């Protein structure tokens, strides 16, 4: 597994150790790219800052909370309405954002008064919201405002409100990851254990590291409900502030994104003895294994198995319809932190695509370890990607599609590589069995878009095909497909609805009998 040197980065030799090609028969011990190190200035890296890691990634998905940033206006504005973490309370956390709007005089004289006034005003403007999260920024960190003291003062004056403070300035660490860590620990230190929950089931979990992108959390909660498992709190997507204060009472922490939220799980284990169970909502097999693990933990495997059987029967024919048509397509799997290993293996197994490259913007070496072990031989793996390296990789590898962020997706577009939004999704949710089929459909639609084929034609040089007035995705995807697959009566395209959450939100669940109650009878 030799290090890979990008042509464009020969002049910054320290980059060489950030990229490897997974060679035949080699193991991770042969080479592992460096990770989570300071960014090289001027390299046009794709990383964000620790403020955004705390506020934007983890804090803001909490739905019944005023999210107030203490600093100049830009941090707030820039991280507002750029993600798809929805909620079932009409998306308050997406619609409203709050800032203290720090100005020059505050830099000189301090901004604590401004902060206090802003807090009061925010609560006044939103009388139905009694919870607040305050985020430090570079500017307020540097001038040294004591945000906790101000928050405490307000809480003393307004007993019905509760305020959480997260000190994670933008410069705190090489990437957004520093902010994930800080907010995990801050929440645990300040808030966990301050509310006692009502326990309604024998099986009680926290669902951690899940941000309800396009409704992922709601899909997963449906499975937990069907198993009779009570979810005390989701950290943090679609999560309620007070529920998250009661995390200490769960029997198990079920961890989805280990990159952004393992810290709180590990600390909960240490402080409260709550075990951590890592699960994975992406893909049929990982879904099945995840539910089985939870079932096994609580001794309710049958409940898990019932869901697995039902969902697999419902959706397998649809996933396989896409798999047959995606076989051997080359994918650059270029997400932020953890999806490289969440997806690398399972998209190969279940969608038939080959992962020719993985990268991680803010992942650590551990993420890379898992990602490399799960991607195909010959794949290029690199850490802290920058603009030129991404381009060079796409030009060399010629992928059929890349999964990445919105803006890098625009770069790919220009070199005619279709992209799917790995952070916010195209047509999510992508978790759960149905979600995974939706993902496969998005991949299929992107790869077989007639527009991408038209984009390759140079009308000044190439022979212009004049025999067709249109092409469908099907005409492109099925051209070389066997009759057996083409005429299959079992396989079928996705049959779900555009918005699969609508019905989910109306769903009710029959209660399971409690063990203690049953014993008592």
């Amino acid at each position, binding site marked *: 597994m030799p290090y890979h040197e990008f042509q464009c*980065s020969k*002049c*910054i030799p320290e980059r060489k150790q950030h990229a490897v090609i997974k060679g035949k028969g080699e193991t991770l011990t042969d080479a592992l790219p460096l990770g989570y190190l*300071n*960014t*090289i*200035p*001027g*390299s*046009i890296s794709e*990383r*964000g*800052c620790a*403020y*955004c890691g705390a506020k934007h990634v983890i804090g803001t998905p909490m739905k019944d909370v005023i999210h107030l940033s203490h600093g*100049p206006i*830009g*941090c*707030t*504005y*820039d*991280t*507002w309405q*750029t993600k798809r973490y929805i909620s079932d309370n009409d998306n308050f956390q997406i*619609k409203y*954002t*709050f*800032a203290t*709007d*720090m*100005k*020059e005089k*505050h*830099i000189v004289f301090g901004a604590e008064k*401004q902060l206090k*006034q*802003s807090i009061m*005003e*925010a609560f006044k*403007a939103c009388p139905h919201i009694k919870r607040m999260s305050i985020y430090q920024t*570079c*500017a307020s*960190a*540097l001038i040294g405002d004591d945000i906790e003291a101000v928050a405490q003062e307000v809480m003393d004056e307004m007993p019905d409100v509760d305020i959480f403070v997260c000190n994670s*300035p*933008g*410069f*705190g*660490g*090489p*990437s957004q990851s520093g902010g994930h860590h800080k907010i995990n620990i801050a929440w645990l230190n300040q808030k966990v254990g301050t509310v006692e929950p009502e326990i309604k089931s024998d099986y009680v979990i926290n669902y951690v590291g899940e941000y309800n992108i396009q409704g992922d959390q709601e899909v997963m909660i449906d499975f937990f409900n069907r198993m009779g498992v009570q979810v005390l709190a989701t950290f943090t997507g679609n999560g309620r502030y007070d529920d998250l204060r009661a995390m200490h009472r769960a029997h198990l922490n079920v961890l989805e994104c280990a990159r952004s939220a393992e810290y709180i799980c590990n600390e909960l284990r240490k402080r409260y003895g709550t075990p951590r169970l890592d699960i994975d909502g992406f893909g049929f097999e990982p879904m099945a294994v995840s539910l089985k693990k939870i079932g096994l933990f609580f001794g309710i495997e049958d409940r898990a198995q019932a869901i697995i059987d039902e969902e697999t029967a419902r959706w397998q024919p649809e996933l396989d319809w896409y798999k047959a048509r995606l076989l051997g397509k080359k994918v650059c799997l270029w997400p932020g932190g953890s999806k490289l290993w969440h997806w690398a293996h399972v998209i190969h197994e279940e969608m038939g695509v080959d992962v020719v490259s993985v990268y991680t913007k803010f992942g650590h070496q551990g993420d890379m370890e898992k990602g490399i072990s799960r991607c195909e031989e010959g794949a290029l793996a690199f850490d802290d990607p920058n603009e030129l390296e991404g381009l060079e990789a796409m030009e060399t590898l010629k992928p059929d599609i890349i999964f990445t962020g*919105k*803006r*890098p997706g*625009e770069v790919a*577009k*220009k*070199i*005619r590589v279709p992209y799917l939004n790995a952070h916010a999704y195209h047509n999510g949710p992508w978790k759960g069995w149905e979600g995974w089929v939706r993902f496969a459909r998005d991949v299929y639609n992107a790869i077989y878009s007639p527009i991408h084929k038209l*984009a390759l034609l140079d009308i000044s040089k190439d022979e212009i095909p004049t025999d067709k007035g249109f092409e469908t995705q099907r005409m492109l995807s099925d051209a070389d497909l066997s009759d057996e697959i083409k005429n299959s009566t079992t396989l079928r395209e996705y049959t779900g609805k555009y918005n699969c959450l609508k019905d989910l939100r109306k769903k009710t669940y029959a209660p399971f009998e409690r063990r203690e109650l049953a014993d008592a009878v």
Partner: protein
Amino acid sequence: MPCEVTPKERLGCINPIFTCQPCGAQFASIGIKECIGIVHGGQGCVMFVRLLISQHFKESFELASSSVHEDGAVFGACTRVEEAVDVLLMRYPDVKVVPIISTCSTEVIGDDIDGVVTKLNAGLLPEKYPGREVHLIPIHTPSFVGSMITGYDLAVKSFVSHFAEKTEPNGKINLITGWVNPGDVTHLKHLLAEMDIDATVLFEIESFDSPLMPSGNHVSHGDTTIDDLRGTANAMGTIALNRYEGAKAAQYLENEFGVPAIIGPTPIGIRNTDTFLHNLKTMTGKPIPESLVRERGIAIDALTDLVHMFLADKRVGIYGAPDLVIGLAEYCLDLEMRPKLLLLGDDNASYVNDPRVQALEKNVDYDMEIVTNADLWEMGDRIQNRGLELDLILGHSKGRFIAIDNNIPMLRVGFPTYDRAGLYRNPVVGYAGAIWLAEQMANTLFADMEYKHNKEWVLNVW
């Protein structure tokens, strides 16, 4: 008093209208050819601005960060700039212009970016890059001063003052457009062409709407050259269309090189476009040709179809960039509409002295509020809690939920407009802009009448 100008009473901000200064400087810098800006601060200051710009244009633009981490924040981060410049120049051999854009963090810690530039000009550039034309331009844009609007204004002036060089008169005018869209630049250049006027346009951003080529060209970038900027000192005059986005540069050229400046008015609507053409005529001596009389006629004809029957008395709320908001308000009045609430989203103290604002105060005969240092809550609160009734909202995408949640039709105008397709392709300035705005406002109202079954049958016999 029917029209009142008041600052927002609250200290904090709920749903900001603007982002901070470095964004404005970044937006200006992508308009220049062979230019990649380095933002000196945390990485989010660049990453999110790039995202914002790409949300609006559905394109990616190159901007770099000095990636200040803890050690820099504590011990000073000037060496990060030095390294950033070197890395950028090594890897982007075509880059000639590198603005060094400061942020709140690096202004607070007091990094001397001017000193860094001096040092690099004396050391790194001649030693490592002899013979290569490189311009390092410090731009001070602390985020705690002004807004993206003042950042843009400052940056345009910084670029112009760095390059402008008096040699021979070039027979051109300088046209400083302000923060506009490619569609605006295309139409402005069309007006100039019709007038037979040669102009340096700051900035040449038509290419922001860039093609997806069979050759796989991947760069979306502005086209203003170093020579264009140098030549600004040799123009016969400067017209800055906007008072708050680019006027500083026009003023600089007048003071420094005696290039006469005309500031404004923002050519939104028929009347302001007339004034713009008048200014062009005055500055160059070129007559207004018949073709523009005809173009204007087409616009007037289109507006006449709409005004009395559909637009008259419609109550409008407008927010966004100050010149845009004021220009739209003026135009709405000409269309018989009633702007009720104008939000100007930063604490610029000179808004009250703007003659256009003063004219509104003097002449508007119904209740109109102009709020300075405003946030979007000023509009949401008035609608939800204080009885403000609006028939139409004009503004950028960040305020979309005011419209959605209050069932008020909204036309997306300004920056950013990411929740509608392709708006950057259409002009809002000039006669073409007047047509586009009026017709889009009408169509937006029409669609709303249909959704709400509110006299939708009216359109049967129009």
